[in-house]
């Protein structure tokens, strides 16, 4: 359903992997070694991702290459330029992992609370006689936004279809060519001459030419028509083939 959710060993994303690996270092997250983490992570990626489709692991690989870059910068003497110092990047990563760890614990804590309809219950009564129920219609901002997106999308699709209608399909071109050859069966006709002179829209002219060209190749294949062109980009001529007795 969702292309972005990847389950490798139950992980939903690289940051979760990083957090678990960092915890394996068995030190306070504040003091984890980013160098070690980079190695741990690249081993994880090598190990788990070997047989997985490349496009689905893009997220994991991006982090892997970033970590390799960070590692190399941490190992080399820092250059004096405008780049953010590697030590700051490492510190940011530590902080992020700490925050994620906190939020994971907080989430577990929330979910471990008593939950309505699981651990505690409302009154089972559905209706009560002395309550006069008045219905008011309700709509949340989210409902509203969801629907405007929906309308907007539909509008776009509709416009797109409208444009399509003007295009010529190969089927139409075949019908058209058949009519032309019913009336004219012994002269070479240029493909360009079939385009309506009053058609000024360039896109439609192109569509007409393309579909009629494809259709004429189809007729040639079937043996109904001969086709001829003197040179590349020269006009293309068509002529009905005489019916053999």
């Amino acid at each position, binding site marked *: 359903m969702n292309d972005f959710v990847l389950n490798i060993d139950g992980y939903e994303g690289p940051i979760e992997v990083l957090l678990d690996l960092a915890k394996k270092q068995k030190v306070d997250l504040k003091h984890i070694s980013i160098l070690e983490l980079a190695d741990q992570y690249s081993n994880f990626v090598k190990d788990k991702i070997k047989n997985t489709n490349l496009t689905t692991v893009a997220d994991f690989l991006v982090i892997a290459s970033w970590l390799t870059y960070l590692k190399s910068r941490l190992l080399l003497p820092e250059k004096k330029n405008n780049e953010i110092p590697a030590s700051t990047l490492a510190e940011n990563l530590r902080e992020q992992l700490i925050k994620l760890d906190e939020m994971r614990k907080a989430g577990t804590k929330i979910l471990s609370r008593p939950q309505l309809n699981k651990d505690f219950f409302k009154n*089972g009564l559905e209706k009560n006689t002395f309550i006069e129920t008045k219905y008011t219609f309700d709509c949340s901002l989210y409902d*509203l936004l969801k629907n*405007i997106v929906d309308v907007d999308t539909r509008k776009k699709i509709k416009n797109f279809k409208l444009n399509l209608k003007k295009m010529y399909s190969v089927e139409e071109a075949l019908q058209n060519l058949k009519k032309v050859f019913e009336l004219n069966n012994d002269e070479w006709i240029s493909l360009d001459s079939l385009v309506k002179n009053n058609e000024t829209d360039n896109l439609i002219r192109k569509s007409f030419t393309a579909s009629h060209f494809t259709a004429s190749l189809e007729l040639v294949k079937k043996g109904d028509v001969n086709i001829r062109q003197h040179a590349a980009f020269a006009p293309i001529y068509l002529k009905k083939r005489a019916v053999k007795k």
Partner: protein
Amino acid sequence: MINDKNNCLKIIEAILFANSDLVDEKDLIKNIPRNFDLKKLLKELKEFYKSRGINIYNVKSKWGFRTSPDMSNFLKIEKNLKRKLSKAAVETLAIIAYYQPVTKGEIEKVRARNISQGTVDILIERGWVELKGRRKTPGKPLTWGTTDKFLEHFNLTDLKELPTIKEINQLGIEKK
């Protein structure tokens, strides 16, 4: 812990409360240790709630909570239940909010289907949309727009606070 009388009473209270129908003694007894006399516990509870706003009530062997009968005069409480707007109404509201002032014809064009008067009526009744005067184009069609009550309901101080369609897409709200 379950072997304490107070706990048995608590269990019975919770079960009676959570069930809309009366609960039979044979279903209650499953949750009570054997050394307790269920009938006695139930009578004790009934006594406890006798003078309160909710009473314990039974029909033969079936038990439940009910509001006290003498409370009925005070219970003319008006309950406001919220009912979801229909898809057509939400869409119409969204179009009015985003394209106002907008004519009925324009709404129909965007929705690619007719809107019934009922749909607009619901929005008017709710106080979210109103007539905004006539457009100065041929035919002088009436236009619709949203009200201050609309802003209030959606916790907006200004129409400018509505997210743009681009922003909504970035929020990752699911498109159908």
